[in-house]
């Protein structure tokens, strides 16, 4: 080839459609396609190299994977949050399983005191995984559960306290305030807590996931995303925009409905999935 050759409109549109189909969102799809067109022009690549350029462009935007960041001393508190039905409770079970298996002393707090049988669902998971589940009576104050659990974690030399919270739409101000209160209360019981706030996103979701990330970020400091249901055909492309705009990285990927179905985020696998 030769530098200066351009991608035609149809090729750029095709790039955009690939990204749109993967739920990258309108803005990111257009921006990434334009960046690839520029890179193509500058590098003198062959049309056959476009996919490689696209891959590079997206990989360049993603953060390398990391485990949960553990506190230097005392219990690490990880809050799990998100809108309704995304997979929070199941993700808590998976995290409990993962970190127990790696030798950590783990306990779980059942802070969804609202939804029918939410505590029972989590209690069953905890029994299966073999970790204690701190709970209170139904309809109780979720912040009180978190406070009790955090105190228990501190006094029992627990390494990791995972907190399951109720699903909540970010459009409900009072529910977002409840979450902020949970964060404050956790910090009172354990200085520095919560050390992690994981936003669980449903890979089937569309661009509203970006709005979810923005709003949850405003209410609490989201430290990472757990992208659930990636064993389906949805690709969760909105996480690229979430990284770009909010600097929130994907830490884990949910790949099924058992306690073992959690993988650390792998940018290469993720991008291969986006490009189909």
């Amino acid at each position: 080839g030769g530098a200066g050759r351009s991608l035609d409109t149809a090729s750029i549109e095709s790039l955009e459609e690939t990204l749109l189909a993967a739920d990258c969102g309108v803005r990111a799809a257009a921006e990434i396609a334009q960046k690839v067109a520029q890179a193509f022009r500058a590098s003198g690549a062959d049309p056959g190299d476009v996919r490689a350029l696209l891959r590079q462009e997206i990989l360049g935007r993603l953060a390398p994977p990391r485990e949960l960041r553990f506190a230097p001393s005392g219990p690490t508190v990880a809050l799990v949050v998100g809108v309704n039905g995304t997979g929070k409770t199941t993700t808590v079970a998976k995290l409990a399983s993962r970190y127990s298996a790696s030798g950590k002393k783990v306990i779980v707090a059942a802070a969804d005191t609202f939804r029918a049988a939410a505590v029972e669902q989590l209690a069953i998971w905890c029994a299966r995984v073999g970790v204690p589940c701190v709970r209170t009576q139904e309809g109780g104050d979720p912040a009180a559960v978190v406070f009790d659990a955090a105190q228990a974690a501190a006094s029992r030399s627990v390494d990791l306290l995972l907190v399951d919270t109720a699903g909540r739409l970010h459009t409900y101000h009072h529910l977002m305030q409840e979450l902020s209160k949970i964060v404050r209360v956790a910090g009172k019981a354990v200085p520095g807590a919560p050390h992690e706030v994981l936003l669980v996103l449903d890979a089937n979701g569309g661009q509203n996931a970006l709005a979810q990330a923005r709003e949850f970020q405003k209410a609490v400091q989201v430290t990472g995303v757990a992208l659930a249901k990636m064993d389906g055909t949805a690709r969760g492309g909105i996480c690229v925009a979430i990284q770009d705009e909010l600097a929130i990285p994907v830490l884990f990927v949910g790949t099924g409905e058992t306690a073992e179905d959690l993988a650390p985020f792998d940018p290469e696998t993720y991008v291969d999935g986006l490009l189909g």
Partner: protein
Amino acid sequence: ALSGRLQEIFKRLRGQGHLTEANVQEAAREIRKALLEADVHYKVAKEFVEDIARRAAGQEVLSSVTPGQQFVKVVYDAMVALLGPAVPSLARAVEGAGSPAVWMMVGLQGAGKTTTSAKMAKFAASQGQKPLLVGADVKRPAAIDQLKTLGKQIGIPVFAQESGDPAGVCRAALAQARTLGCDTVILDTAGRLHIDAPLMEELVRIAHDTKPQEILWVLDAMAGQDVVNAAKSFGERLALTGIVLTKLDGDARGGAALSVKAVLGKPIRLVGTGEKLDRFEPFNPERIASRILG
């Protein structure tokens, strides 16, 4: 908002006789962008916009409205036509037939099937029906507990068996319905992936054994592009009779509803607008059209 952008494009048309090709193309781009931002599937958006461009090109500009307003109306009407008509009332048991009406709830994980089943039961009871809720999800931890708790809240009986296969539970539920004199049986099935062959087969078996009058695909309003693939697969395996949209109390534009409707050709029946069991209403195509168009 889209209507504002379209008004801008056509502002310059005042006094002209008809919408020009250039204006229509510019407007088409704006509409496509709005639809994609609303999570409408990109192929559905493309087709919809091409259809609009055909309808609008050369159309006489009505003297009573501005071209922009007229164009907005063309788009809105086309969207309402595609989304509708609303077919809210669910099939009831035939008088004297001796067998209950069976409504089967299916869909991806976490869409809102269990909550919606309870909402439908509450509504049916308010209409003088005698519903029976069936916990056909024997897999998810405390799924039966969840349905039983909801059933208790609204005074509706729940049939379940802690173990056993879902088809067997559903068959036994029909017998129980007759014993209890229930005229409506609502089957709450487990969420599942459309690519999980054995689980899709399980749904086919349940449908075969219970002959539902309604098979409703439950769709989360926040869903994105890929959901049409799931909808298509479910639609290929089951004789779906409708779509139920959930979580409309959020701020997702809900474009997936348009895509799924376009692809399945089945009516959207009902919508969920909250977690409480009274947050539930018939589908209104006008309201959803406005929401999608932004």
